[in-house]
């Protein structure tokens, strides 16, 4: 009974937070990724755990009867995430742990190429591959590409971001597949 209730709360919460998502799973993943970025963009060392902690508290509070405003459900999420961040900072200060930021490893880029990356690149359409090539090979080309496609530079960046997002997922799947 309690499990059913928990499941219902979970479903309702992510339907509310991500109404455009195709599924509850997708809604959950999108919300989690936003929270991951929320903490990452605050330079947190472990944004994954902090995102999970936020969602955990959110579910707990909703199960406990906390109501979430339908017109702006993320304001409550934001409040919890901010609290989690404050706690993180306090804990960090207590532990005296400094941000351990590695120096950038300027390793030759070609050495880092793996098979999955190549495979995923090959799976892209010719247009997308050419777009990436032009985008990354010559900075000055970007304006020309945007002009040719009738896009603003930001829209072009968005397009490249979407291609990269697809590639990232492809590579993750490929790596999981090769490991299994």
């Amino acid at each position: 009974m309690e499990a059913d209730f928990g499941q219902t709360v979970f479903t309702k919460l992510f339907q509310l937070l991500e109404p455009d998502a195709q599924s509850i799973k997708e809604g959950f993943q999108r919300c989690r990724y936003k929270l991951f970025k929320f903490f990452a963009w605050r330079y947190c060392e472990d944004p994954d755990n902090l995102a999970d902690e936020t969602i955990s508290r959110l579910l707990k509070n909703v199960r406990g009867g906390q109501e979430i405003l339908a017109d702006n459900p993320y304001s409550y999420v934001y409040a919890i995430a901010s609290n989690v961040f404050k706690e993180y900072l306090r804990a960090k200060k207590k532990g005296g742990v400094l941000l351990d930021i590695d120096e950038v490893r300027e390793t030759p880029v070609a050495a880092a190429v793996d098979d999955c990356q190549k495979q995923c690149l090959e799976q892209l359409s010719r247009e997308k591959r050419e777009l990436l090539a032009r985008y990354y090979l010559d900075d000055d080309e970007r304006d020309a590409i945007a002009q040719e496609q009738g896009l603003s530079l930001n829209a072009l960046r968005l397009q490249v971001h979407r291609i990269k997002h697809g590639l990232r997922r492809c590579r993750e799947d490929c790596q999981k597949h090769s490991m299994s």
Partner: protein
Amino acid sequence: MSVSMNAKTDDLITRFLLGELSDEERTRVEERFLADNEFFEEVLSAEDALMDQYLLGQLSDEHRKRAQALFHSSPGQKREAQFTRDLIASVREAHVESSSTASANSDIGNSARAFSFIPPGLKNFLPHFNATGWLVILLGCLALMSCLLYLYSQKKDWEAQRAAVERSSQEAREKLSEEMLNKAELSRQLEIEKEKRAQAEEKAEELAAQMRARKPDKINRPDTITSIILAPTTLERGGNSKTLTLKAETGRVQLQLELDESQRYSQYNISLTTFDGRRVWSRNSMAPSQIKQGRLNLVLPASLLEYEDYKIELKGLSENGDFVHVADYLFKVRR
């Protein structure tokens, strides 16, 4: 907010990512990207662009440090930076491969891209030129273009000449190779002829040798005749039998049989036998014209006669039509 951000928003997002916003501004941006998926995607794409600039070394020192802190703050962020680094490497690697292939087929029209080596930073100098400077640049460009056109036309001429030379060289090579083939064929035929001739000469020599070898036989051929006159005998194996000695070179033997000319017959039969009765030779119906000076001459090959005692019986055709005994002749052959 629409997909196409204005420059102000873009700047705001970049400053947000670099940690340059006030708390208030930051809160606004954070609340917005959490609630607005499109805006979240724009922030993500701005982060991608910032990452590109960072990895390509296009940020100022201050921004590079902040970007470094952002992209190396957590394992997740590092993974994303590494992903972009790999992507750039892959794209460049693929470009190097494709451009090395394409360069083989490239024409002069593509050579304009060769000027892309000019660093983008040089563009910052352009606005400092005055009108004269621009005119000089324009003239320089025109001169360069003329030069390129001239070189291009020269290149075409050279290519045409080179093609013609290559064609004629190819033809010469073909002709030479054809002549060499003919020569080889002629040599081959000559060799065959020489071989044939050698064989013929060898054969001729062999024949000549055989001829030379046969020559003594020819000398010994039965050209020499040994003659003997035989008188009729009445006693068998009589002591008066003559001996005919045959030499190696004796080819023929002439036997002269003495006859009584008072007794003439129209025809004669003659037989030569050994004393054992073996018939060696015979002839019938000999005309009496063969008898000359009281002798009937017979010429026989010497090879018929061996070391033996022989008897010749002569018969004549009588008037009543019977052959009657006329005479016997005895002789010995010795070699």
